[in-house]
C-alpha cells in the first residue's frame, strides 16, 4: 500500500526540526528523477507563493472611541473614502478606492503606510445621535493608536489567470499593464509552478482555516474567494487553463511587513495592491506529491484579446513559453511580460520554507473544504423587479 502521512505526523517532524521542506520549484526539479511515491517518502512540505496585484483586497480597522463618541458615517483616510457603514468606529478601506483629488493615491497606499507605522489622516462625519453625539472627527491615527486592523481580501491567489493582448490599433491601458496595438505584447499574471492553487488544483489541503503566509505575517484562508469557479476547462494535469478558484484570506495588518505588500498604480486604470501570499502544502500521499511536481511547462495558459469588450480567446500557450520572452499570436511573435513578480514569489516560498524548517510554522488541516461544482453568474441589466 502506498505511503500516507497525517498532518499530525508532519507537524511532529516540524516541531522536532526534522521536516523536509522544499519550494514548489525545487520539488518540480526533484520530480524529474523521483516518482511521486519517492517524493512522499522524502518530502514533508512544499511551499508555494505568489506576489501579484490583487485588486480585491482591503482592511477592516477599528479606530477606538472619542469622548464624547461618534457613530462614523462618512470616513476618509488620507482623503481616500473608506466604508463606514459598519457600527460606530469600524471601517473598511478598500485597496482600489482612490483619493478624488489624486487618482494615483488610494486605499492600497493607506494600507501600506499603516503597515509601515506612518501616521494617517482620519476625517469622519456623522449626523449625531443621543448615544453618539459627536458629529465630526479630524485626527491622525497609526497602527499603534488603533485597535484591531486586519486585512480581509475577498479574492486573492487566483488559480491561473488570462494572458492579455490587444488586437486594436490603439494602446489599451488595463490592470494587466499597457497592452500595445496589434498584439505586439502579451502580459501574464501568475507565479506558474509556484502558484498555490496550481499546486493543489483540487484543493485537497487548502480549505477554510488553512494557515498561510500573508504579507509577511501568518494569515488564514477565511472562505472561498469571490468569483470562485470550478467549472473552467482543465488540462491533462487537472489544472485550469484560465482563471478559476480563488481564496478569501485574512491576517493581522499590524504584524505584516512592507516588503511583502506594495501599493500599485496601473496607468489609466487605477490603484491596486501587490499582495505576497504563500501556502504550505503537506505531502500527505502520492496524489499530492504528483500535483506539487508540476513544472512551468505543464501549465496551459489562454491568451485573450483585451482590445475587445468580451475578451475573446485568441491563442493558447504554456507558462514556460511566456517566461521565454515571446509567444506567437495571430502568426506574429509578441513580446511577453509578467505583471506578477516571480522573484518575489520565490523569496516568499523560501521564507515560508525557512519558517517551517525552523519549527516556527505548523500546518493546519482545513476545518471545511472549499466548494465544488461552482460556476459564475453574470449581471443581467433589468428595467424592473421580476
Amino acid at each position, binding site marked *: 500500500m502506498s505511503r500516507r502521512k497525517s498532518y499530525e505526523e508532519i507537524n511532529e517532524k516540524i516541531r522536532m526540526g526534522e521536516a523536509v521542506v522544499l519550494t514548489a520549484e525545487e520539488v518540480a526539479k526533484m520530480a524529474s528523477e523521483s516518482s511521486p511515491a519517492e517524493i512522499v517518502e522524502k518530502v514533508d512540505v512544499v511551499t508555494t507563493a505568489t*506576489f501579484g496585484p490583487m485588486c480585491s483586497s482591503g482592511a477592516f480597522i477599528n479606530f477606538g472611541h472619542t469622548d464624547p463618541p461618534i457613530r462614523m458615517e462618512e470616513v476618509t483616510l488620507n482623503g481616500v473614502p473608506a466604508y463606514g457603514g459598519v457600527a460606530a468606529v469600524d471601517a473598511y478601506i478598500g485597496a482600489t478606492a482612490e483619493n478624488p483629488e489624486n487618482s494615483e493615491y488610494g486605499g492600497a497606499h493607506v494600507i501600506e503606510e499603516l503597515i509601515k507605522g506612518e501616521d494617517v489622516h482620519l476625517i469622519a462625519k456623522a449626523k449625531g445621535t443621543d448615544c453618539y453625539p459627536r458629529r465630526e472627527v479630524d485626527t491622525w491615527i497609526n497602527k499603534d493608536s488603533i485597535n484591531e486592523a486586519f486585512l480581509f481580501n475577498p479574492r486573492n491567489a487566483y488559480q491561473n489567470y488570462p494572458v492579455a493582448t490587444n488586437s486594436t490599433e490603439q494602446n489599451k491601458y488595463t490592470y494587466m499593464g499597457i497592452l500595445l496595438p496589434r498584439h505586439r505584447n502579451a502580459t501574464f499574471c501568475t507565479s506558474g509552478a509556484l502558484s498555490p492553487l496550481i499546486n493543489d488544483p483540487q484543493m485537497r489541503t487548502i480549505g477554510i482555516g488553512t494557515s498561510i503566509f500573508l504579507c509577511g505575517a501568518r494569515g488564514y484562508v477565511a472562505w472561498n474567494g469571490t468569483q470562485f469557479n470550478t467549472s473552467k476547462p482543465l488540462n491533462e494535469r487537472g489544472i485550469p487553463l484560465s482563471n478559476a478558484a480563488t481564496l478569501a484570506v485574512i491576517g493581522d495588518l499590524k504584524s505584516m511587513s512592507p516588503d511583502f505588500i506594495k501599493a500599485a*498604480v496601473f*496607468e489609466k486604470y487605477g490603484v491596486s495592491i501587490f499582495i505576497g501570499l504563500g501556502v504550505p502544502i503537506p505531502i500527505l500521499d502520492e496524489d499530492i506529491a504528483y500535483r506539487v511536481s508540476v513544472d512551468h511547462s505543464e501549465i496551459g495558459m489562454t491568451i485573450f484579446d483585451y482590445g475587445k469588450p468580451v475578451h475573446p480567446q485568441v491563442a493558447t500557450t504554456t507558462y514556460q513559453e511566456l*517566461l521565454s520572452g515571446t509567444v506567437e499570436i495571430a502568426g506574429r511573435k509578441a513580446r511577453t*511580460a509578467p505583471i506578477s513578480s516571480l522573484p518575489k514569489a520565490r523569496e516568499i516560498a523560501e521564507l515560508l520554507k525557512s519558517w517551517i524548517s525552523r519549527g516556527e510554522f505548523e500546518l493546519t488541516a482545513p476545518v471545511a473544504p472549499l466548494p465544488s461544482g461552482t460556476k459564475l453568474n453574470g449581471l443581467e441589466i433589468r428595467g424592473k423587479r421580476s
Partner: protein
Amino acid sequence: MKQRYILHFPLESVSKPLTTTIIRDYGIDINILRASISPERGGELLMEFDAGEEAISKGLTFLEENNVEVERFEHTVKFREEECIHCGACTAVCFTDALSISGGRKLLFDHARCVACGLCIAACPLRLFTISWNGSC
C-alpha cells in the same frame, strides 16, 4: 564609435535626402531610433551614428550646412532600483530590451540600450522611473 543626436529639421530641409547623403558620402551607419517628422512642418529625428570620429564630425557639419540643428542626445532615465519588486510590467513596453526580465529572473536595466522613449514611466506600477532630457526634467 556610436553617438546619438537629435536632429531638428526645419521645413526647408525636409525635402532633401540628407540622411542618404550622410550614409553614402560620409560612410556613417545610421539607426533611426525615434522619428517625428512630416513634409508639412519639419520635425525631429533621434539617430544613432556609427562611424569614426572624423566621419561623424564631417557628417554633422554637412547637416548643419543644410540648416539641420544638431543636438547631442543626452538623457538620463533614473530608476529607484532598491524599491523594485521585479514584477516585469515595464518590460511589456520596452522595445529596445533595455529592460528585461526573461526567465523569471530579476529586472535588468541596460542603460546603453535605452532610447528614453518614456513608456516605462507609465508602465511601472510603483512609479519608480523618472526621465531627464539634455539636462532638463
